[in-house]
């Protein structure tokens, strides 16, 4: 099951290595990780998405995250109501026939379009995980040249 953690940490060198180390030491792959400053310059925010093959080990990681001296707050958003967003850039190979189809998809998902290249269109989509999933499903049949994602950021609604 996928878990989304929202973690407040000290804005210091080495903190990311400590957090990442907890997952790495147990052989867990982090699916996405977004780190950014907050309104408090001494605090950073991390959104960590991880697919847990073993819930018990994940529970252990959660406790270990809390135990880190540099973590200020850990929330497992999975069990909460939360807002999540991700920005995705997708470059699709196009010809005269495909271009209108891509533009139609872009319109339906309110994507920004970059048409600078002659044989490719780049879409910029912002959305929650469902919207991003829909986008990637819709583009599946086309020739995707490159996908770059920011990784999910998330915040509890409370």
């Amino acid at each position, binding site marked *: 099951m996928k878990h989304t953690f929202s973690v407040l*940490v*000290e804005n210091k*060198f*080495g903190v990311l290595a400590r957090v990442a180390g907890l997952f790495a030491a147990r052989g867990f792959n982090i699916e996405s990780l977004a780190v950014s400053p907050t309104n408090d310059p001494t605090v950073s925010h991390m959104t960590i998405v991880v697919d847990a093959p073993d819930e018990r080990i994940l*529970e*252990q990681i959660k406790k270990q995250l809390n*135990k880190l*001296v540099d973590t200020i707050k850990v929330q497992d958003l999975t069990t909460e109501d939360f807002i999540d967003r991700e920005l995705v850039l997708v470059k699709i190979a196009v010809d005269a026939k495909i271009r209108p189809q891509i533009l139609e998809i872009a319109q339906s998902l309110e994507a920004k379009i970059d048409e600078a290249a002659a044989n490719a269109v780049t879409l910029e989509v912002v959305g929650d995980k469902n919207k991003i999933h829909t986008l990637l499903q819709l583009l599946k049949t086309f020739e995707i040249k490159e996908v770059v994602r920011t990784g999910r950021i998330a915040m509890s609604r409370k």
Partner: protein
Amino acid sequence: MKLSGAKILIESLKKEGVEVIFGYPGGSVLPIFDVLYDNPIKFILTRHEQGAAHAADGYARATGKAGVCLATSGPGATNLVTGIATAYMDSIPVVAITGQVKTHLIGNDAFQEADVTGVTRPITKHNFLVKDVRELAQTIKNAFHLAQSGRPGPVLIDLPVDVTMAETEFHHPKEPDLRGYRPTISGHPGQIKKAARLILQSKRPIIYAGGGVIISGASQELKKLADKASIPVTTTLLGLGCFPQTHKLSLGMLGMHGTAYANHAIMESDLIIAVGARFDDRVTGRLDAFAPEAKIIHIDIDPSAISKNVEVDIPIVGDARNILSQLNKIVKPVQTKKWLERIDGWKKKSPLSYKKDDKLRPQYVVEQIYELTKGEAIICTEVGQNQMWAAQFYQYTKERTYISSGGLGTMGYGFPAAIGAQVGKPDSIVFDIAGDGSFQMNIQELATAVANKLPVKVAILNNCYLGMVRQWQELFYKKRYSFTCLANPDFVKVAQAYGARGIRVEKKKDVTPALKQALSVKDAPVVLDFIVEKEENVFPMVPAGEAINRMIGGMA
């Protein structure tokens, strides 16, 4: 007045109550050693940085205070690593200070450079790289607070040489500054009430006590609980001494080489009260067969220790002494007469035993050390058979008298740890019960003990084997003794060459006189080379992966 980083370090250590530093000099710590040259703080020069780390750990275990070790950058620091990992696994407050190359050279593969905060990240409670001398005093305050509070553990401070040379105003901070660190101390009152109710309902309760009881100073409260509710007590290896083994409710140690009666009792119990213990695999044996009928109350200061290995019914997070004293106020006597009778049956049927004949058996040596010291000595051990016999055949009645690397199982730990213990407890009799293999891993520390006139007694149970590995090879690998047979030096001559006393004992009747002779030496280490039965085994034994009541050997 402005002070250099090196002076700030030493002044801060003194403010933290540090009386002794164990360490080894080198290029990156020259400014620190220059301050130590004419400073009243005591410095013990070991002969290897690993010895310094273990000595700081042994000092901490014997005294309850934080132990401090100091080493230079690169190899000096990496030599501390095994000692730091040892302290980490057993939750021992050690503050390790390492030199580092100049800040502008970090990451340049400079001479004697190693990424020591990177290397020690997973084996320290926390570590710091100080890049600005103005942060040094607060960092040291934070380090000592972290090392000694909550679940204690080693903390490392990496100090670039330019930081120790730079100057700034010195103000010793009163408080740590760690907003993300808030260990839970007092247990939840609702959980404590639930625990008291569950105890009252139980018919076959058992207390399973670990090193956390000693760390929190909860021995008296534990004894009160056992006495008041008539509950038998078994301890882990690191819990030895937290409950007097001479007490009628004592079951001794449980687990892979525990007593048969402790293992039977925990397997048949209907309630386990775990205090400051973590259900290690050497204790539980096969997990899915462990104590099938037992409900579990788990008292521990570390939330991540709870429900890690076994599911817990009533977790109580907090300081053991605090929680037990709350619990003792409301706990009621339990009818355990029948249960204690059943346990007594096991005690009579399967006591710890070994063959009593004319041969010089290692268990006999341990028993004689107990007899002659009346259980008042501090017993340090190496790792392997010596460690288990020291646990089985000496009756521990006081906390901080059994000092051993439990979690990491570090060979070579015992002797430097004994040096640290002797420095911290100069009036105590300190033994290192050793194997011929382990002792050779830090034998160079004989020079440290001699130079400091430390009367540590090293009792080598010399069987010319890596005995525990040989035992496994005998039992599970068809006696194929692959590289476990040791060609040893003459330990008596080695001792003498270092300026220590050396005594060889080859006959059973000579054990007591030799020990008496060793005990009369007050100003030098004594190496006792006991030539014991070569293929003696540690029994009982639970084979790896078996349920802990499936013991082999040693059953009368």
